[in-house]
């Protein structure tokens, strides 16, 4: 009897160098286990995360995304996370309006001291996205080749 392969979501995490990345590091040095579905991309600051990065992650097969940085007031560059928060406030509803489940893009503040929160958050994201299932909508448009698009247009 063929065993049903369980869906394991691919999660891309965009982390700020100063807080969340260090927090994730702390979780590692503290030997706190968390689900291995996450691929971490380290960036200097959440303020430097262009929403295009998130779209690109979906294009390249991510089922879910976590964006995480310093708590308000703690930004290494003073205000990067405040600016980022403004952008997320409008970008998230935009994606939702286009039919992308907002649960697939999650945001968090995790400081360098919060290894435990990192573990909790990433496990939460993985569980949520696993429950949502593969991001079929995006996978479909990723696999439709350029040649197929004209035939499928306007239908």
């Amino acid at each position, binding site marked *: 009897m063929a065993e049903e392969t369980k869906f394991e979501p691919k999660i891309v995490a965009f982390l700020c160098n100063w807080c969340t990345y260090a927090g994730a590091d702390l979780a590692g040095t503290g030997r706190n286990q968390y689900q291995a579905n996450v691929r971490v991309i380290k960036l200097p600051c959440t303020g430097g995360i262009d929403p295009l990065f998130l779209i690109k992650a979906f294009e390249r097969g991510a089922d879910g995304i976590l964006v995480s940085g310093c708590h308000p007031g703690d930004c290494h560059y003073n205000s990067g996370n405040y600016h980022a928060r*403004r952008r997320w*406030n409008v970008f998230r509803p935009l994606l939702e309006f286009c*039919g992308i489940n907002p649960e697939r893009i999650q945001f968090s*503040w995790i400081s360098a001291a919060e290894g435990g929160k990192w573990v909790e958050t990433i496990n939460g994201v993985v569980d949520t996205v696993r429950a949502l299932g593969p991001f079929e909508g995006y996978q479909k448009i990723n696999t439709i080749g*350029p040649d197929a698009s004209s035939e499928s247009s306007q239908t």
Partner: protein
Amino acid sequence: MIEALRKKAEELLRSNTVDVIYGYGEGSTPERTRPVFITKPEDVNKLIWNKYCVYNLTTYLKRQESRKLGKPAIVVKGCDAKTIVVLIKESQIKREDVYILGVTCNGVGEPLATKCKACDVNTPRIYDDLIGEKIENKEIPFDERYAELDEYEKLSEKEKWDFWQKQFAKCIKCYACSSICPLCFCDRCIVDKNQPQWIDPSAHPRGNLSWNVTRAYHLAGRCINCEECQRVCPADIPLNLLNKKLAKETEKNFNYRSGYNIDDELAMATYKEDDNQDFIK
């Protein structure tokens, strides 16, 4: 009103206050108008004003060809005038570099353009001269202004996705939406940058989704709802819904409306410590 407009235009050109008038002229058909560039006082009779003057002429402020004509006076409706506020705030033009010929307007388009349905700028909020009888701008409640979005926001996640996929499939990547947009003024658009190539240039579902989402997002907190992108789209994609959604979120979250007050900080260039963060863990 046309007479007053022509008279003023002639006066501005004769006195060398400006070098050129960007205005509306007669179009290919009676239901169309077209942009005209008047540089000689004797040509002011080419200027017209009627309900088909839907264009937002401020887009020519970004074009090198029209800029070469010198200092302009622009015929603007109340909605178009908001663009100038944003352009000034974003350091694209200086207030003194443009002469604003505001026209009062009771709506354009036949049938009436959707942008006119909840208009609260019948009289421009910024102008050097006002042509036409001043109309008292009314206050329109938030819900009414964004009423157009209701039927789409109500859709389920899958319905939304299917709706937009169907719309984006029509996109042919002609970039008329960004070419016409007075606020898409980057010398080289992100889609034309290829190191790295963030947005696939092909007009397939993947490339079309990232292009259309990015185009809209780059106007977050900036779009003044002139609906030019939607008007020019040869594939009839309701692009303005995306822009409007972003405007709604900007207003809801930051109490900011683009182009209304020249003293307001640009929504996306500032922040407040107590900005909404109920979605952040």
